């Protein structure tokens, strides 16, 4: 049994041409929708008994994590595996990084091993952007300090869109440690680009007024804004990123900002509750709320896989990401790698150009501006 909610492919799906995914701030709404629409197609694969397609056979996806992560790294690895790519994890401890190798050198060495995509997490904001300037392979930002975590933002958007059927016109509250949160930033960019109203809520030390400049409403009173929210995204208190003394005590924080059943009673009946995880039960939300009917926490994890498959798939479409130039001088498709040369009869135009599917316009959407299909000579 395999079913999928019908993919809503907007015209944007045809327009993906980026090599890297560094943040949602750079993307136009059509590009965000292109990823979400592609992810809807990939969600179906996870419902199959055989959860694998051969799309990225022979590609190498390298996880380069300079910060601890289970969910994100596992999710990227699984996403790559479901697309039949090979995956390799790198962690700095026990590597040459401890011998003083620079960040860029480490990445260049990994690229030299044939990596097509680097999934990068680093405590320093902008680290993936730096790699994007120095490397030829595709870079995916899997979290750079408190800057952005685009795939988390995308999976939140996907979860909201699946539950509510839209993003436009919704009121979404981001609750908690906004100042230290890359998830908050990616959420703000993604949600506002797609037409949602964003309310930031938490203690003044964690939710500075200055964030109003990003077009958000800033408040410190959860009980006042909760009834207006369609969605609340409960962000984790980032104990590891905080200096001491940003709020008096965890107990006090919980009293004012923990999502409890009592608070939920004052919210809309169809309130959707998200939490990027890991969650601190009893700090940001009570266990019964985390496991309750409003919670979409586990849907987020499932959707995260689909979003990451979509991102890996879309980025792999860039020829440059495969280290080949786009020049085509002799009618042969450029940049074919041995592992991807399926036509035994040689690469002449006849054998490449016009498979029946190709001739039949398989690769293009039935919409204006659809992408071209195949390397027809």
């Amino acid at each position: 049994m395999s079913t999928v909610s019908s993919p809503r492919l907007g015209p944007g799906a045809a327009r993906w041409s980026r090599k890297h995914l560094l943040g949602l701030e750079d993307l136009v709404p059509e590009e965000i929708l292109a990823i979400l629409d592609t992810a809807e197609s990939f969600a179906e694969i996870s419902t199959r008994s055989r959860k694998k397609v051969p799309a990225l056979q022979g590609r190498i996806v390298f996880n380069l994590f300079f910060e601890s992560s289970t969910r994100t790294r596992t999710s990227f690895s699984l996403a790559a595996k479901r697309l039949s790519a090979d995956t390799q994890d790198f962690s700095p401890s026990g590597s040459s990084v401890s011998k003083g190798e620079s960040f860029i050198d480490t990445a260049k060495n990994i690229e030299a091993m044939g990596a097509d995509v680097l999934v990068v997490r680093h405590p320093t904001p902008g680290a993936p952007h730096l790699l994007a300037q120095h490397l030829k392979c595709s870079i995916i930002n899997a979290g750079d300090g408190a800057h952005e975590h685009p795939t988390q933002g995308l999976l939140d958007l996907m979860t909201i869109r699946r539950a509510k059927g839209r993003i436009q016109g919704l009121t979404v509250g981001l609750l908690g440690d906004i100042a230290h949160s890359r998830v908050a930033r990616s959420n703000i960019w993604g949600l506002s680009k797609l037409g949602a109203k964003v309310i930031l809520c938490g203690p003044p030390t964690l939710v500075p007024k200055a964030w109003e400049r990003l077009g958000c409403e800033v408040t410190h009173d959860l009980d006042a804004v909760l009834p207006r929210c369609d969605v609340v995204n409960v962000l984790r208190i980032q104990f590891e990123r905080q200096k001491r003394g940003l709020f008096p005590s965890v107990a006090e924080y919980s009293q004012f900002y923990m999502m409890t059943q009592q608070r939920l009673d004052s919210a809309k009946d169809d309130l959707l509750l998200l939490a990027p995880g890991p969650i601190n039960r009893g700090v940001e939300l009570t266990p019964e709320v985390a496991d309750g009917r409003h919670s979409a926490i586990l849907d987020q994890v499932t959707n995260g896989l689909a979003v990451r498959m979509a991102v890996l798939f879309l980025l792999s479409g860039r020829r440059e990401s495969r280290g080949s130039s786009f020049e085509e001088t002799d009618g042969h498709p450029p940049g074919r790698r041995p592992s991807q040369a399926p036509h035994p009869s040689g690469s002449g135009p006849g054998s490449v150009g016009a498979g029946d599917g190709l001739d039949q316009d398989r690769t293009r959407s039935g919409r204006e501006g659809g992408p071209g299909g195949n390397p027809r000579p």
Partner: protein
Amino acid sequence: MNPSERQLCDGPAMEQLISTMARRLADARRAGVPLQLVGIRTRGVPLAHRLARELTPLLGSEVPVGAVDITLYRDDLGQAEHWPVLRGTEIPFDVDGADVVLVDDVLFTGRTVRAALNAICDLGRPASVRLAVLVDRGHRELPIQADVVGLEVATARGDHVRVRLHPVDPREEIVQIEAGSQAPPRNGRPEP
């Protein structure tokens, strides 16, 4: 019609072909085994729905129709100049133990069918898979043949054969475009 095109079949004649195909599918129906149609995107899907509509009175029951997107199974994915858009596989039934009929508009090299077979087999284990195509234009590159064919057409390797079907296309017909002439755009867009 574009001057470089030769019409092989107009709308009513195509209707006839589809009826004949449906009758042949009905004749081959096995009692007790569920029959399912799976159209290959794009034009295999409306064709599968048309066949199902014709089959319903012949069999006295509805025939479920699914759609398979072969994009992720293409053998030339790594060579595509533009990355294809996914339109999704939607097969809202269990293919295990069923007689599945793959439906496509044109059978050419067989590579699309190969990809579709792999896609179907990733979803389960059908009792059988057969292939129904509206047009067989020859030039196979793989050992794949159709079980039910509406129209066989002799073509040169470089010719194009186009099936135009509602609701994907505004008018219904099958046309052949000679090799060398500029193939007209599909859905108003230029050829790749």
